[in-house]
């Protein structure tokens, strides 16, 4: 299991957009740029480390208050600008450590800030913006829910430094009163617990796993390859549903999430019966 390094976000943001600085008015931890992708303009967003950030618990690649509001504002800006035109693709480059675990964050209602980011990404998706998440490093817990998981399509690099999970192993072990070792043991036989990106892919929630040499320092050819994959995902998203149903109807999800599919079918069957008369 890889430690969070926080270096991949800026590397991939720069590689895909040619930019490296935040937009005016945004915290240094949120990078946004419009850049060409597959012959059109796309908006790229990335949360990065900011050791000088105002909020100490959000300096290390976490999604905190300022990050969540900046993401929400920049996504909504694109939706508003494209209201009557071509809906530009929105690409969330994901390398987030977690949500920010802090007292100030909770006092100032980080749950609402995170919900604003979720609302914005969802609004973009249902307004027919292709929303693509590209996981280049860590994608953990509330950080990933706020930035990436509401996308039409989630793509991830097939690499040991990539981790998608509900909670990082040390914290999960402490909360579940177990050791990291026994958590690792359990995660080897129970797919949804796994920290391995290959196992995550088997759940059927990912659109594609991308093979990239040296993801810490990708070559121009590797970056071009990822751009082509992103453009292909954009085309497919434009043909696909605006909701998240691909993530339970994919061939792999039909295997891994058979219980969820049974729930959907059984609930639908019971739904329409009359309420009254008992």
């Amino acid at each position, binding site marked *: 299991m890889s430690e969070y390094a926080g270096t991949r976000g800026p590397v991939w943001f720069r590689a895909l957009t040619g930019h490296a600085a935040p937009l005016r008015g945004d915290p240094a931890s949120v990078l946004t740029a419009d850049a060409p992708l597959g012959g059109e303009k796309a908006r790229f967003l990335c949360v990065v480390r900011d050791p000088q950030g105002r909020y100490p618990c959000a300096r290390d690649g976490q999604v905190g208050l300022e990050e969540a509001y900046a993401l929400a504002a920049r996504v909504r800006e694109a939706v508003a600008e494209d209201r009557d035109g071509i809906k530009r693709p929105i690409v969330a480059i994901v390398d987030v450590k977690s949500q920010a*675990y802090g007292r100030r964050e909770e006092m*100032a209602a980080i749950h609402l*800030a995170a919900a*604003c980011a979720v609302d914005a990404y969802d609004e973009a998706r249902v307004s027919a913006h292709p929303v693509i998440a590209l996981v280049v490093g860590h994608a953990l*817990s509330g950080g990933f*829910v706020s930035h990436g998981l*509401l996308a039409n399509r989630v793509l991830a690099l097939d690499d040991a430094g990539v981790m998608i999970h509900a909670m990082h192993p040390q914290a999960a072990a402490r909360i579940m009163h177990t050791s990291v070792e026994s958590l690792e043991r359990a995660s080897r036989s129970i797919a949804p617990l796994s920290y391995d990106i290959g196992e995550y892919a088997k759940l059927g929630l990912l659109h594609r796993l991308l093979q990239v040499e040296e993801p810490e320092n990708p070559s121009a050819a590797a970056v071009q390859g990822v751009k082509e994959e992103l453009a292909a995902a954009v085309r497919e998203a434009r043909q696909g549903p605006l909701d998240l149903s691909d993530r339970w109807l994919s061939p792999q999800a039909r295997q891994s999430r058979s219980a969820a599919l049974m*729930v959907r079918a059984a609930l639908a069957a019971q739904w329409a019966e009359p309420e009254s008369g*008992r």
Partner: protein
Amino acid sequence: MDRRSFVQLDARARAMALFDEGCCRELLGPSCGMGSPWLARQGITPQADDGCVVMKGRIAAQTAVVMALDGSFLGGSVGEVSGMKMTAALDLACADNQRGIPTSAVLLLESGGARLSEANLGMEAVAEILASMLALRRHAPVISVVAGPTGCFGGMSLAAALSSYLVLTRQARLGLSGPRVIEQESGVEELDASDRSLIQAIFGGEQRHAMGLADALVEDDTEQVAGAVRRLLASGLPRVHRSSQVTAYRGRLAALDGLRLWEPAALRVLWNEAAGGEESA
């Protein structure tokens, strides 16, 4: 006054208490035997309703679906089955609205969020619930209630924030990360989870309501909770949902830059002074 505690009711009784007398039925109840397939192999006994009660019926003569998370089962956590019960019920309600059958939803949130013993399927379930809530709330109000004693944390705190309306009791606690998790991750100097009065002052229903983050603050009384739900359902959709008012809330956050001492009462004042009225959609 004859009061009947809401907090002491189990999830099923809480859901039932919201409906008009005799006007509800449970969907996928325990007799359907749909427990989680992931727990037994981890030595955890599954529950036949997976800790989520879904009931459909009439509230103030209007069709509604109520989803109640059972805080006594794995902390009300959302797993593959309980999560899909919520997502599917929200989707069915949404489809009914699109067909001209108005149907609203009420979520009783007693939950620590994604179930860690189903980890990535729990996190996925959270995302799907949120997306389906957002779809439904374009047509009909989605109301959340946090009563206690479990509270509402993790992904379900986002569900509370995305709701059209939120009802809290005084003993309810609401936040993204629970006090224990913050103490573990950021240290006791960041937050002392054993300081009950501080925890209540930060996460408690009264503070959340005073900051404008909830629409009703009620006593632990079943009739008050049910009355608040009926009243909010009758008020229809809000003009702009709280979670869509990015500029307004970002502005309030900026106003806190000058706050030297982060203390709940001072924050409440500054936060409310910074309120610039609600945004248009």
